[in-house]
C-alpha cells in the first residue's frame, strides 16, 4: 500500500522535475584510506630517498653545546627556563617586542624531551618541541598577573620569564605600564590550551607566525654555549 503511494508521488515528482529542464547527476562516493595495504610506489620512493637522507643530515646538524643537562622541573626547571628566556631574547633581538617590557609563560607539558649535556643538534630541538606552535604576543589587563599567579600555584610551576613568583606572590621584573601586562606565549596556550584561561582577558594580541622551535634553533646557534639556569624565579608558599 505504502509502496504504491510512494511510487505514484515519485512519478508525479519526476514529471515536474523533467519540465524544468533538470539534468540528473548520479553520484557515487568513496573515501580511500592510504594505509600499508597499498604498497609504496617504487620510483617515487626512490625519488624521495635522497631528500630523506639530506633531512636526516639536517637533523644531525650541530648547532651548539650544553654545559650540563637541561631538564624539566617544578616549580622551575633548567629546560623551561631556557625555552622562555630564549624566546624573550630572540623577540627582543629581532625587534618584535621592546626590551624588558614583556613577560613570558609557557607550559611544562609542551617540553617533550630534555636536552642532554654535550653537542646540541637540530634534531634535539625537534624532539624538545615537535609541535608547530607559534609565538603569540598579547596585551592583558594588569590584574591578569594575579590569575597567572594562582595558576602557577595550583599547577606547581610552569616556565616563566620577565617576572618572579616569590612565595606565591608575583612581581614583574620591569614595571612598564600601570594598566597593561605584556605577555609572550605560544598559540596553543593562548587559545585555551592547558586551561590558561587568563588569556581570555586579552585586550589585543598578535600571532607572530614564528615557530617556537625555529626560535630555539636560532637562539642556540646565536649563543653557541647553553648553560642551565636555575635562579629561583618561582618559589611557592
Amino acid at each position, binding site marked *: 500500500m505504502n509502496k504504491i503511494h510512494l511510487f505514484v508521488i*515519485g512519478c508525479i515528482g519526476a514529471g515536474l522535475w523533467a519540465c524544468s529542464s533538470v539534468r540528473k547527476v548520479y553520484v557515487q562516493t568513496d573515501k580511500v584510506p592510504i594505509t600499508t595495504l597499498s604498497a609504496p610506489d617504487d620510483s617515487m620512493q626512490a625519488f624521495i630517498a635522497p631528500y630523506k637522507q639530506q633531512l636526516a643530515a639536517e637533523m644531525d646538524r650541530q648547532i651548539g653545546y650544553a654545559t650540563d643537562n637541561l631538564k624539566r622541573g617544578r616549580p622551575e626547571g633548567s629546560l623551561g627556563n631556557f625555552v622562555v628566556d630564549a624566546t624573550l631574547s630572540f623577540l627582543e633581538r629581532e625587534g618584535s617586542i621592546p626590551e624588558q617590557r614583556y613577560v613570558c609563560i609557557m607550559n611544562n607539558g609542551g617540553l617533550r624531551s630534555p636536552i642532554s649535556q654535550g653537542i646540541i643538534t637540530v634534531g634535539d630541538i625537534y624532539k624538545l618541541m615537535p609541535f608547530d606552535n607559534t609565538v603569540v604576543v598579547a596585551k592583558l589587563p594588569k590584574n591578569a598577573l594575579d590569575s597567572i599567579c594562582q595558576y602557577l600555584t595550583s599547577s606547581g610551576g610552569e616556565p616563566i620569564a620577565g617576572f618572579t613568583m616569590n612565595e606565591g606572590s608575583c612581581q614583574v621584573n620591569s614595571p612598564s605600564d600601570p594598566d597593561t601586562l605584556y605577555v609572550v606565549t605560544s598559540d596553543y596556550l593562548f587559545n585555551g590550551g592547558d586551561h590558561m584561561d587568563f588569556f581570555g582577558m586579552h585586550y589585543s594580541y598578535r600571532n607572530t607566525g614564528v615557530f617556537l622551535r625555529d626560535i630555539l634553533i636560532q637562539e642556540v646557534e646565536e649563543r653557541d654555549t647553553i648553560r642551565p639556569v636555575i635562579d629561583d624565579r618561582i618559589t611557592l608558599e
Partner: protein
Amino acid sequence: MMKRRLFIQQSALLGAGVSVAPTLFATPKIPDQLEKLTILHTNDTHSNIETFPEDHAKYPGQGGVARRHTVIQNIRSSEKNALLLDAGDIFQGTPYFNKFEGTLEMKLMSQMGYDCATIGNHDFDAGLEGFVKAYQFADFPFVCANYDFTNTPLNGLTSSYQIFQKGPFKVGVFGLGVGLNGLVPSVLYGDTVHQAPIPIANNIAKHLRFEESCDLVICLSHLGYHPKQFDDCDTLLAAESENIDLIIGGHTHTFLDRPEVHKNKVGEQVLINQVGWAGLALGRIDFYLGEKKRHERHKLVMV
C-alpha cells in the same frame, strides 16, 4: 516497537517525498549508458611525505605520498576521466618543508599528476617569493579567485578558475582562500588582497555553468568547514551560492566519511567534502552525468 519505528520511517519518507524529490525512495540505479567522471581529492597534506611510523599514537602506518601515488595510479588505470585536486595547505608540518621550502611537495604532486590546487593559508609560510620558487617545480595550475595577487610576486601565476576537458565532460574548477589577517603574518602575504569569497564564487560559478557550459562546477575551498569559527565557511558558501556542484574543502582538517549534501540558495543540491589532513585518505567522488540540457538545473542522485 518495531512497527512503530517502521511507521515513523515511512512517514518521514512520505514527507520527504512531497517536498523534495522522487529519487530518494528506492535505491537509484545508474543508467548504463552514462559516462563517468572521477574526482579525486586531498586537502591539508601539510608536507607529510612519509607514512606515519608504525608506533605513531594516532595514525600508525597511515598516509605517505608513495602509497598515495600507488592508489592514484590504480584508479587512473581503470578510470579514463579522472581529475586529481587539492584544497590547499600543501606546505608546513614536517621538517621536509623547513628544509626544502616546499619544492619537494610541488615535485611530488606533479609526479602524482595533480590537475589543480588552491592556495591555503600555510602555503604562504615560505613567503610569496618562497611560493614562487617552489612553484617552479609544479606542472599544475593554482586557482585562487578571491586573492588579488596583482601587486605581489604571484601576479599572473594563478588564475580564478581552470576548465578541464575530461572525455565528454567540461569541468570548471575555481578556488577560494581564507582571510589572512590574524592568521598569516602580514610579512608573509605582503600585498595580497583577500576579497569576500561568496559573491566572487557566485559570479564565477554562473560564468562556468552558463557561459562556459561546464558539465560540472567544482570549488576548491580553503575557507574551512565549520559554521562558527570562521566568518565564511563551506556550509555558508553552500547555502548562499548557486551553480556549484561540489565544494572540496580544507583548512579545518575535517574528516567527513562521505560528502554531505547541502541545499544551495535556490534549493539545488551541492556536495561538501573534506578528507581530514596529512594525506591520510584520498577522497573519491564519481559523477555519472545524464544528457546535457540548456540552462539546466542539476539534480544530484546519491547512489
